[in-house]
């Protein structure tokens, strides 16, 4: 048996921010952004339903939709995202519901939280671990991730609505958010 030394073929990045970023705090009066994509209608539906609840509480909602991420289209997306992040106080970023879309959801969420605004990524259960893994590899292991059931996009509108309603309070909790000042006092 010959013993000797071999060289490590792997490489990892060393930097990491374990902080989840700032809590969202009181949402009333805040500008809240939803990041959407081109695939998941269930996420469009849940965003609409959550947006209605937030607007009722006095928040202002805007949307940004991720499209192609390469070529001129990708450059346009990056510029749009940067500009949009400059117009909102906090971001709800989804949907991590496949491989590449989890990758881009987390990547955009990291871009958001790295600007200093409260940010939460939304993933479905099957992609929860992956979302955390990819966040850590993106240098932001503490990224907030709220988890919705899986499968989700295969459900009917009414079922998705019920899921959204059932998860709204838990999402706020994960986000460190309360709807209004009186909620904070409680």
């Amino acid at each position, binding site marked *: 048996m010959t013993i000797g030394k*071999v060289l490590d073929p792997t490489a990892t990045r060393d930097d990491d921010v374990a902080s989840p970023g700032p809590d969202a705090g009181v949402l009333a009066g805040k500008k809240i952004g939803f990041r959407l994509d081109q695939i998941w209608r269930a996420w469009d539906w849940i965003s609409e339903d959550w947006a209605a609840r937030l607007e009722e509480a006095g928040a202002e909602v805007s949307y940004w939709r991720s499209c192609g991420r390469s070529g001129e289209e990708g450059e346009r997306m990056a510029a749009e995202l940067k500009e949009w992040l400059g117009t909102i106080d906090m971001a709800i970023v989804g949907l991590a519901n496949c491989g590449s879309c989890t990758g881009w959801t987390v990547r955009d969420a990291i871009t958001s939280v790295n600007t200093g605004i409260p940010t939460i990524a939304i993933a479905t259960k099957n992609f929860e671990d992956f979302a955390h893994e*990819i966040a850590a590899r993106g240098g932001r292991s503490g990224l907030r991730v709220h988890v919705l059931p899986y499968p989700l996009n295969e459900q009917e509108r009414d079922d998705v609505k019920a899921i959204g309603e059932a998860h709204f309070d838990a999402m706020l909790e994960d986000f460190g958010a309360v709807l209004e000042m009186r909620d904070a006092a409680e």
Partner: protein
Amino acid sequence: MSVTLIRPSGSKIAPVPKPLVSRDCGPAGCEVDWLASRRYETELDFEGFNSFAMEQGWGDGLPLVPPTESRVRIFLSENDRYPDEVIAHLPPSRAECTVEKIAINAVMAGAQPESLELLIAMVAAIADPDFELYGINTTTAPVYPAFIVNGPIRDALDIPYSYGCFGGVATRANAIGRAMRLIMRNVAGQVAGVTSQSTFGSPGRLASILAGEWEEKSPWAPLAERRARIAGNAVSCFGTMGTMNVLDTTSQAPRDFLEMIGKSVPYVAANCYTPAMPFAEMMVAINPICAEIVGKEMPNIEDVQECLWRYASVPADLLQRQHREQLEGQGRVREDGRIYATPEPKDFILFVAGGLGGLHATGFHSFGSCLTQTRAIASPIPAEQAQAAE
């Protein structure tokens, strides 16, 4: 909305590789410890090392060559790169892919030192933001980068471009493709079920596809020259879902061959029709026999691309309503009621390869927003020549 066209980003201008200067001082010529990677003490015999490597998560399950310091130093000493040179940051890990890491993985895969500059060009190509490696390495799709090589280096490295060129040829060049896959695993961090969510994967994720273009049999300019005006040694890479065979034992006329290929490649569940991505490229390998026939009538390859593109579409009403509505919303249904596989004819990327038995073409569906990249392969120049030039 209207069809989103594929236009490379501003980062797309391919950098000219730096001329390498042969030198006396380097990994083999100095007492300096050039290698920065962590050393592990382990058994070096076949069973011992391969068990250790699997435990460490370094391998692909096939036997690996132990990357001892002496092997890595020899590999580097036969080249003209310093090991600490950072070639790229590969996603999703975004860790530094240095020459040293490339060399270690190449040694493990069994690749020869002469392959280093090709490997570096391959890494640089896939690291271009337009290649969208982040998506490739995380997606549920089975996509992987495939590489087509132009120039004399094809023969120098025994890269196949004739019979069986996309898999099955016994050649040391297979180890280069495998080295690339080990780099993807060990440096980029693509691990099935951990970072990669690929539902099925692909045999191409083991040793990739590394083939040459049979330039000498092509009636058109070499692929790298057409794409990036690079004459000589170059590599083009594209993300592909795998090979798709197109058989035609009947056609005689050039346009008949192209009609058969064009009509065969689009299918409604292909990535080019996903609403997740606004566009896709389509790669097609044309065999030398077919290429000769087509080339006589169409010496301009743009005409071939145009002809293929016109056939490569599906009627929108072939799609179920909810699928069709998504694409309609993206403006992808044209006035003729059809959805084309690619936005424009130029997005059909063609090259000549394969055996002289003819009959078949190979289609490669892309990963949507992953755009094909072409890079020159650097070659060393003697130090005296470099000094004289200065």
